[in-house]
């Protein structure tokens, strides 16, 4: 990446001292961190609702990257994309909750460990 971003974002405008030097790389770092945190959370937590939240975190991490890139490219595509991602995430959330409720009825637990009959 030989060309640094010197574009002024709204955030920079609002908090010139704190994030005055924030570049694309910073945003990407945050987005990657969100993604990885989501991933790690997904792998380590057993509560299905928390696991779902972790996937949401990953989605939003990707979303953040999209926005940052959108800003970087001065296009609306990134933001558009994120809107759709949010919709999908919402749909998933709805499904997830329905599913979790269904499962909870059967096993009386939210632990994903309760479901390991199928293996091999």
């Amino acid at each position, binding site marked *: 990446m030989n060309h640094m971003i010197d574009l002024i974002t709204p955030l920079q405008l609002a908090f010139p001292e704190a994030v005055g030097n924030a570049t694309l790389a910073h945003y990407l770092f945050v987005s990657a961190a969100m993604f990885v945190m989501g991933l790690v959370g997904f792998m380590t937590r057993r509560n299905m609702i928390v696991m779902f939240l972790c996937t949401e975190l990953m989605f939003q991490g990707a979303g953040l990257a999209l926005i940052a890139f959108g800003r970087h490219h001065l296009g609306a595509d990134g933001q558009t994309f994120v809107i759709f991602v949010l919709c999908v995430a919402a749909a*998933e959330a709805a499904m997830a909750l329905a599913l979790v409720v269904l499962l909870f009825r059967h096993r009386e637990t939210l632990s994903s460990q309760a479901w390991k009959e199928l293996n091999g």
Partner: protein
Amino acid sequence: MNEKLALIVPEIVLFIATCVVMITGQWPSRALREITPWIAAIALFIAAMIGLNTEPTPGALLPTIAPYAKAMIGFIGLLLLVNLSGVVDRQLERDVDEGKPFLPLRSNRGEFYAFFLFSITGLMLTASADDLIWLFLALELTSLPTYIMVAISTQSNKSHEASVKYFFLGALGAAIFLYGFALIYGATGSTNLAEIAQHFATHGLSPIGTAGILVALLGLCFKIAAFPMHFYTPDVYQGAAAPVSAMLAFVPKCAGFLGIIAITAAVGWREGGHLPETVESTLWIVAAVTMFAGNILALLQSSVKRILAYSSIAHSGYMLVGILAGPGEAGAPFYRNGLAAVLFYLAVYGVMSVGVFAVLGALETRKDEEADDIECLRGLAKTHPVLGWTVILCALSMLGFPPLLGFVGKLGLFASGVSAGQIPIVVILGINSAIGAVYYLRLVAVAYLDKGQGPAPIVTSSRYAGRRIAALCSAAGVVVLLLVAQPMASAAQRAARIDRPVITHDDLHDAHAETDLHHDDDHDS
């Protein structure tokens, strides 16, 4: 905008049907409830026929893929639909038979068929996707309904377990390829595939672009059940009802491959017929490991669904060989066009995989309990000749035994792989076919040849004629479609045309120079 709408007429038809189906499925009148599948079938047929006549999309990366893909999706969707008969509302309808009132709230029929149609709609949309956003949405539309379908396909805990795994891991996979899409967008500044391709062609593959492509492809591996995202497959296939498993074997895989074709097409094959080295290596490893993982693990199974699941994994590996081979030079004939081979093989795989699942669905060990253990198939050729021979023919076809349809499909992969110089992976493909032969032969032997020790489990034919019809169609397909293999192949060859900018050697050089700077991005992901 209008021209885009014209491209998705089949999807629109399906969408309308979806809405209708959702209503009729819950309708108090039994007759109207009963015609729900028929509505879906008619809609699928119309969509397929319209899809078949879709005009090429000017300016798109894959301008001609839609007719073939949509027709294929439509017709195999029909087969899947026939097979899906009686998956839901079994108890409910029996209760109604006994005089109990119909409770719309307890009924799943409407949403089940609606979900199915949604999923097929999503699949068709994948085929016409010319934008990352579109692609993402189409993929999600394909997948999301299937999560529910798995959950409600049976009343047993297995379905629930399957759905929880499928859903959560699906979300994980979706997040991964979404992140990949984001990076691709970041690298190119566009979500339009044709523009992305243009960008890659002129500017080469930047590190971020490379990372994006790889992450996106690996995320899509979830859809096609390929390494390293294949782990869920056997559990989900086993947990879901056989007809739904049949659908899972085809629909997401098809969507995934269409997505992979789109992404790889955006990256572009170089003149020698090779993807950029990073992408090629990744896909190479994925293909090889996928084939091996699928085939060897299938050896240990006694559940037919699991065997088929692993076989599905293996077949994804086979098809990846076609992706590696690439479309060849512009206007390359079928034998040189790996993408055509993949498209062809997708149809072939759709036809032949439905058969065995349909047989499983058509058999029951207890009331409403589908046959799954391989012992249930014992002597099937004698007790249920049609189902038995379906198993035999489909298994042999999946094995790639000449001259059945699967063999012709595999030939395409072989031919394109060898033409593209991908000898080692083709040899691995050959070896894996041989490993696969073990468990396919086991199916054949159980159904047809071996007597076995002890009494075979008692299996009876289920009351859903649709599944037997689907089995019959599938069995007939692997034989009869041989006669139309040529039109199918040439259609696939026409479909797999990529309009992409010519890549010059200088560009390649740039791409090479830049690939050294990618490490940090890798760790970020």
